[in-house]
């Protein structure tokens, strides 16, 4: 190998060392030399970074999707539980409606307990006090000891019934109904 060729080879090695890893060359036919026609010095590193982040994004996306599926499944399970409880509550409400129907209560009261709806019922407005109707009744009841008035309180489908010795008052919706035996 001549000194000139050696020098040329060294030059080429030096030249290539100073070039980036990616470059486009054109080989000259006559002397076989490669001529660099295009190079992007930072392209490779940019590509590496892009690929890295792209891979990370894809991995993250897959991870999030898996998490979303898990959450979705949990939501479906919770919704199913809610609908089952709602269904149970609806069934109970239906049962309550059936049990509180006037037909059942009146029939039971008449046939099983021998009760009758009284014909002697009067509805009256009470005057002469500054209190509201319900307050007046409660006030009246409060001033009469249970032992002396024979007061009994119980609920019925008509409202709250307060039974005294000779008079029965129904307190409901702010107006009094007196049952006078």
């Amino acid at each position, binding site marked *: 190998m001549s000194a000139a060729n050696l020098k040329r080879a060294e030059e080429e090695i030096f030249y290539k060392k100073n070039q980036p890893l990616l470059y486009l060359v054109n080989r000259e036919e006559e002397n076989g030399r490669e001529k660099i026609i295009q190079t992007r010095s930072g392209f490779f590193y940019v590509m590496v970074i892009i690929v890295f982040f792209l891979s990370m994004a894809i991995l993250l996306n897959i991870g999030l999707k*898996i998490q979303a599926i898990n959450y*979705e499944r949990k939501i479906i399970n919770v919704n199913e539980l809610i609908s089952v409880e709602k*269904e149970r509550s609806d069934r109970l409400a*239906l049962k309550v*409606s059936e049990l509180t129907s006037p037909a059942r209560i009146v029939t039971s009261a008449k046939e099983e307990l021998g009760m009758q709806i009284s014909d002697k019922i009067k*509805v009256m407005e009470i005057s002469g006090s500054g209190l509201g109707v319900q307050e*007046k009744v409660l006030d009246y009841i409060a001033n009469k000891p249970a032992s002396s008035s024979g007061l009994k309180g119980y609920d019925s489908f008509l409202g709250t019934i307060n039974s005294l010795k000779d008079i029965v008052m129904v307190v*409901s919706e702010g107006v009094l109904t007196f049952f006078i035996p």
Partner: protein
Amino acid sequence: MVREANNRINRKRVYFLFILFVAAFALITYRLISIQYIYASKYKSEADFQHKEEYVVNSKRGKILDRNQVELATSLIEKTVYANPKLVLSPDKEAEALAEILALNPDEIKEKLNNKDLGFAYIKRQISSETADLISQLNLPGIYIQNENKRYYPQGDLAASIIGFTGLDNNGLSGIELQYEKILRGVDGKYIIEKDVYGKMIPGSNNNYIAPVDGGEVILTIDSQIQYTMQEKLEEVAKAYKANTAIAVVMNPKTGEIYAMGSYPGFDLNTYQDFDEALYKDLGTSFTYEPGSTFKIVNISSSIDTGSIKPDQVFNLPPSILVGDKVIKEIHRNYNIKYTTGEIIKYSSNIGAVTSALAMGKQLFYEYIKKYGFGEKTGIDIPGEEPGLIYNYKNWSGSTIGALAIGQSIAATPLQIVRAACVIANGGYLVTPYIVKEIRLTNDKIEQPVMQESTSIIGKETAAAVKDMMLSCVQDGTGTAAQIEGVNVCGKTGTAQKVNKTGIGYTEGRVITSFVGFAPYEDPKIAIIVVVDEPQGPEDLIWGSTVAAPVFKDIMNFSLQRLRIDSGKEVDTGVVAK
């Protein structure tokens, strides 16, 4: 030379390859465009058909409640097992597994699952959630669980003809269920899933869920306790007198709110298929009959309002009168008598009513009958209302005015008659009856039905005068059986002969007895009509005053108590505030 020749060949090869690539590229481009653009919708639908499955998520039908939120109709979600036999892989094994859980005959299930022509077959409807869960856990290919609504009516036969019922597909078929179908039904949702080759859902794929919108709640003006008492009393009277039917309507004379409406015999909404279809009708709005003497309140109020007669006018009344070609008689009187206008109502005088109508004349009488809304639907918000029938006065025969004066030659519904009584009760206003108080939509929005304004059809003085007459009718006239202790009740009796089935003439012994009235006199809050069709018994005991008035009294008495309506008189109990 050789090199040049080689270059030429190489160039040709390159050109050939280039053209080949261009052609292939063009072909691929064309194919891509045709798939992605030209035939895109076709391929998309084919792909969707293969990979997507659409499930209907049923909306829950809304409740029907009474004015105090008592449930009259409600829906429960029930589970239904169904199969797509085309997707069932091993029909025999799956049938055995299903039969064990559902306690069904395995052969019947096998038959369904082996029928590959079917895309859908019910296995069992309305099963419990627990059973449905057991089936879901088996993951049987082609076997699915679906939610279905089932309608329940917890009050049974209460207000059955008003509420109506739904069919198997959950569509309203009658009553409020039909009238408010759109609101009650809601909007069904969808669940669109992507599935794999085995028909199973691909998790995480583009599953699309459109949530169902549940139906709204319809709150009625009905009070279930008044309704119950009314139905009970109607049953009692119908059984006691072996009547065809007993009908009643309870309403607010000022607002038109219906508190109760029904008839006996009725039917149970939960087992409606077991009853005669004729019972499904709401007779309060569809039973047309000749109202008889209850119509005299329309006649007398019209005469007074037109100035044809005066409230305190005295009439010398013979026992019979010839109108056109027909003789109209008094029932209990064969001598002349002097009655005031008030006594015509009080004692229900036929001759007095005819005299009043004749004083008014055909045209005015007809115009007032129309003003009262006869011959037209009242506009109540339930389906199946009948308009009744009244002929134009131009087509009346010579005797028609006489017949109309006593409530014949006209077909009216009980609701129309009680509405006429409401005009007297509220000072002359024709109200539009309504049965839906409010509608609650799922978004918590509350809608009030559009109310039609009441129109004044007679003067206040006229209404007050007729109200006094109706009061005296109950106090010491024909309607004394409707008296309630401590309450001033106004009313009018009616006993109308029934028209022959041929439509010509009347049959002795076939009558429709009725009573219409309102209370308390001082400030009417409740108006009621009771109609009893063909009560049986001795002729001299079958009257509106003996059959219908006591029922009216019982219903009115309970309604006044229930709605806490006082008698209008203040009582000092001596309770003093501290």
